């Protein structure tokens, strides 16, 4: 059961990375417009 001592910080670290990524994405405006990007990829030039 000593595994928990290693697993716990790893899990917390991974979680923190994803939480940070999410916050950064929201601040960056990635979720402000969910309707246009799907239209836009059809018009790559």
């Amino acid at each position, binding site marked *: 059961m000593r595994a928990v001592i290693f697993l716990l910080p790893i899990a917390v670290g991974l979680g923190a990375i994803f939480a940070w990524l999410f916050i950064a994405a*929201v601040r960056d*405006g990635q*979720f402000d*417009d969910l309707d*246009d990007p799907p*239209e836009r990829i059809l018009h790559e030039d």
Partner: protein
Amino acid sequence: MVEGSADAFCCTGCEVASLIISDAGLERYYAERTAFAPRPEAQGGVDWNALPIAPGADGRCETRLMVEGLRCASCVWVTERVLERTPGVTQATVSYATGRATLRWDPAQVDLAALARRIGALGYRPRPLGVEASADRSLLLRLGIAGFAAMNIMLLATTIYAGWLDGMDQRYAALFQWAALVLATPVALWCAQPFFAGAWSGLRHGVLHMDLPIALGVAILYLQGLVATLAGREGYLDSLAMLVFLLLAGRVLESRGRRRAAEAATALAGTVPRTARRLRSETRDADGAGAAIESMETVAVRDLRPGDRIDTGTGEEIAADGVVLEGSAQVKMALLTGEAAPVLLGPGDRVVAGTVLVEGALTTLVEAVGEDSVVHRMAAELALAQDRGTAPTSADRIAPWFTAITLLVASLTLASWWMLRGSDVAIARTVAVLVVACPCALALSQPLAAAAGLGAAARRGLLLRSSDALLRLGHVTVAGLDKTGTVTTGTLSVTAASDPTLRLAAGLERYSAHPIATAIVAETARRRIPLPAAAEVREVPGQGISGVIDGARYEIRSSGPGTIEVLGVQGVIGTVQLGDVARADSGSVVRQFEQLGVRAVMITGDHSEVAERFGRDAGVGEILARTLPAAKSDWVRQQQAGGERVLFAGDGLNDGPALAAADVGIAMARGAASSVLVADGIISTESLAPVIAGIRAARAAERVIHSSQRRSIVYNVLAVAAAAAGLVNPLVAAILMPLSSSMVIWNAARVERLVRAEEACEQ
């Protein structure tokens, strides 16, 4: 010449647009477009370079504009590329969903006015944006963090619950419990903050609404979790995180639906800095004669003073109220009087700011500007009429009872178990009662179904500002429909003409920007008559147009209201009748109003014969003719006094008071800015059908809300009874709560299906 097709252009505007597109190397647009772009119109009045835009740190300017008339993804593509390939532009993105263009440019190479002209030349209408609400990112952040915490706490909780069966070392159980507490702390203290804020502001104003039992529930869940963790027992932290996550998801969905309508309204009513051309006379004594010399200067409209003289030309908006001194012109007063046909004005006639000069030129003496103008006085009246307040939702009406009953049951549980089994058992069961009583499913019923209803209405062309407006729309009993621009198209159309006459008229009118010309050219295109080439076309404003078609000379001129004659060398060849026509779908809309149990009444300032003709066309039984603008809002109040719930649909400045007074006011997107501002909803297409779709969506949403609320109350009653009997522990709560909430979510998804089913019945 487009893609090898040899058809002639309908007007110079379209030809210019096509040149711009092919110069930029974007001919692909013509192959890929799925809808035709509108005809370019003259852009007048907006002073783009007066917009307050300062260059950023890198010397580039950035701004956002509204672009109207985008009809398909190819429109977006061609606009973006044409802008990007303009020298000096560093970035141009256009959003199809919101119609927003974001531009970055180098002010040393190009100015905003030039960019706006380029968009205008393609046939789209650029408009400056007013102040915009930024997207609510903080709510989304709260939702994300709550979701992240909820998933992790569930994993930890599952481990603990599994430990009940397998046996688990107490140390690990405590570790997991503490980890859950750490994750739950930001959820309770930060993510759930909107509910605490809502409950608190409700309490301060003496209103008990749905946020109160939620805030109570969250607080109790968290405190119980804290105490239980300290005492080494298991708490309800998984239920807490799940609850906050689901409730926030409901909020996010609802606010997204609302934002769309708010954005559309801001853009349509954007305050625009406009300019006017002021005449200045100077007396120059230097040349001895003392003669007055006229000069012209361009000034901002807000700098005009009564007594100034201003010039207005074709396509421009008249800048201030006043009297015509010189010149004659056709002026379109539609937004003010609701009359589609332009009116011929000459010296001595009064003009009102905001009306558009269709053809000709006027010099006017300014009499009133700013707050004294007709438009401003009307806006002030509207502000008074608009104070409608927000009606409590059905969930909010339940909330005080709900809270009171929960607290009563909780104290009964506490008292009876205390007497029977002592304090420990009593406290544990009371907490369980308070936990399962938290009305998550009940609180979700309304926002989810309302968001689904707002979405269903928006997909069909009706943008509603709030869920309140949606629910009120479901209850309307009378629909007051303004005639011009609402039941009718509000623009001139050809009502009668033979094909050969129309062809000749179109040949001569194709170069003109007058509404009559637009109507004739559009009708020619509709009848698929090829446009003839015309030579030596000469237009005498106010008199007529002459030119040579197929080698013969023809002339057209006006002959009475709404009629023009085509003359050849030998005399009159034929006439073209023009007028306002009922929208193609008005008849079916009126029929559907009746099917929905809503009385449709057409209201107009016209004479009764004209009104009746339109009424017959549209199938409206009840017509109120010769109504003065002010009488429209009186009519609304009369109906309301008689116990009716009134829907009013209109587009003009004079409809504003009625829109504001009605239970639900709906404006047309192309209508006057003030009507858009006071309305609860905006129709984004050129049709009345979205109102019907809106009523259906509202009724579907209402049905779903009621069924969800009934089911969640049944759930709550059963769960509270079980908790009072001591049958609920954290595991049971963790299973029951998501179950009841998913029942509500699944129910909300039925709104769209219900609306579709009704539409299928109609066809």
